């Protein structure tokens, strides 16, 4: 394997995951929170593919593709909720959404 060893990928993935987690914890806009969740999912995907290469088995890549499909589904539902909020003229701020009644 040319280039960096697995440790570098693990550390990069940890930094990416922490960045995404900071976005989820600190931002108010639900759109940016969804985007930060994408960063976290991609950090885990990077780790899956790196260890798949380390062990020489493709199962990690299969799992990464499944994670992509789950992320796409999560986006559809999250964006549907955000569009519903926008149509009701609710302010897009997760701190101000205290009830989930329809």
């Amino acid at each position: 394997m040319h280039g960096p060893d697995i440790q570098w990928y693990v550390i990069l993935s940890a930094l990416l995951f922490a960045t995404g987690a900071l976005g989820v914890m600190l931002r108010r806009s639900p759109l940016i929170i969804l985007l930060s969740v994408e960063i976290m999912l991609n950090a885990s995907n990077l780790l899956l593919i790196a260890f798949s290469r380390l062990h020489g088995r493709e199962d990690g890549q299969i799992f990464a593709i499944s994670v992509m499909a789950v992320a796409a589904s999560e986006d559809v539902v999250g964006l549907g909720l955000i569009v519903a909020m926008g149509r009701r003229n609710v302010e897009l701020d997760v701190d101000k959404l205290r009830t989930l009644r329809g």
Partner: protein
Amino acid sequence: MANFLVWCVWFVAAFACLVSALAVVSFRNPFYSALSLIGNLASLAVLYLLLAGEFVAAAQVLVYGGAVMVMFLFVIAYLGDRTEESPWSGGPSWQVLGAVAAGGAVLTEVIVVVGLSAGGFLSKPAHIERSFGTPASIGRLFLTDHLIAFEVTSIVLLVAAVAGVVLGAHARRLEGDARA
């Protein structure tokens, strides 16, 4: 020489990845955040290529960078300009708490990695065939060993599509009520 080139590509991609992730988290306007996430996904695809994940890299660019991000940009454009007054939640103590939690997670992971590599668990990458990660071999695995994961994924996508339609119809009904 090849090794040096791979290291250069790796550093450029990793740097782009981290910078664009920080940009996603820190931009005020969600439109710019979504655009920088596209850069993040593209640089991750470069790293996947370095790890012999050719099919996953292509799927990442096509499905994620293409389809999903276009959906995001459409929703952001539909909602219009909503630049936030105060984009960061809570008081200063919350930001300190978040930074400490994220920093602690990174530190733990770095310690674990250093320990594992000192113990010799991470040293030798396995030898791989030329066909590793190609669409043919991924597709064969999906239709033999991981058939259940494949089918469950299709059901998950179907349920998500139904959920999107239901949420949209519900919002439209509310809009109709408001107009009447």
